[in-house]
């Protein structure tokens, strides 16, 4: 494959941007779900390259056991396109490696994250990134989603299709 230098230069000139959605997801006994919506502003379309996620890992009793309790369904709110089956577990792509079992010695830490997972997707201006998040712990959990990418100003670009 031959690298297209002109395209790389054009991409590097585009303004970098991060969209963030952060919220608390209530515990299981209080419904255990939260729809987190990231609104794409009207001034630009957004092409995301990476998705990073951080969250905490509290068990039913509020202890940090290092085990993930969150799952998510990601949808493009503009064209109603679902981007995964059912509710996928956050852990396999948003924490390092395997999980820790409760009772095993060690400090699982409070926040877990990776440097970024590929998420090449074009989000239209005025659209939204819908992150329907579920929690199967009885403790309230906090989660932050960040989409890293480029803006394509609507005064210069329209989306076809």
């Amino acid at each position: 494959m031959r690298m297209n230098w002109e395209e790389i230069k054009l991409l590097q000139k585009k303004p970098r941007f991060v969209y963030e959605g952060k919220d608390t997801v209530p515990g299981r006994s209080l419904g255990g779900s939260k729809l987190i919506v990231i609104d794409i502003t009207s001034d630009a379309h957004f092409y995301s390259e990476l998705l990073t996620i951080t969250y905490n890992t509290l068990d039913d009793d509020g202890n940090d056991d290092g085990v993930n309790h969150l799952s998510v369904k990601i949808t493009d709110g503009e064209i109603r396109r679902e981007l995964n089956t059912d509710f996928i577990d956050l852990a396999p792509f948003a924490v390092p490696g395997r999980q820790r079992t409760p009772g095993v010695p060690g400090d699982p830490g409070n926040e877990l994250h990776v440097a970024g997972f590929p998420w090449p997707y074009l989000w239209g201006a005025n659209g939204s990134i819908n992150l329907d998040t579920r929690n199967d712990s009885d403790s309230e959990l906090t989660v932050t989603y960040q989409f890293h990418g480029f803006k394509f100003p609507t005064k210069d670009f329209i989306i076809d299709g």
Partner: protein
Amino acid sequence: MVETITRPNCYPYIYGKRKLEIKNPVEHIYFKVNKDSDFYLYFLLVNWPIGTDTPDLSFSIRDKSRGKTYTDIPVSITNFTTPAKLPFISGTNPINFMFFKDSPIEVIIEGQTPGTPFDPEYININLWGLHQA
């Protein structure tokens, strides 16, 4: 002058199952590719509670409808997710395997000790790839 961006015909997609219990020495797990898109599988992402279990888990992947197999012999998961404490992305080798629309994806996992089930509390599996309309 306003430029037109054509919406890409491929987009990221994750097929996932969470908290699967493993009961058999060789476990077959199935996913079904959507009817309207081919699926280019890029990463197999797996994790499970450590407990007293070793990380010795093998897997193979195949498209049963075409008789195509990515790995004929189950290969150790440690080739794809080492070591446990590193970020997953840096320890995960790309798989690069195409499944056509509406075809079954079969993931076969087994423990390293023949006849003995790999026995974590549960296992999470995500298949990360690109849908191509």
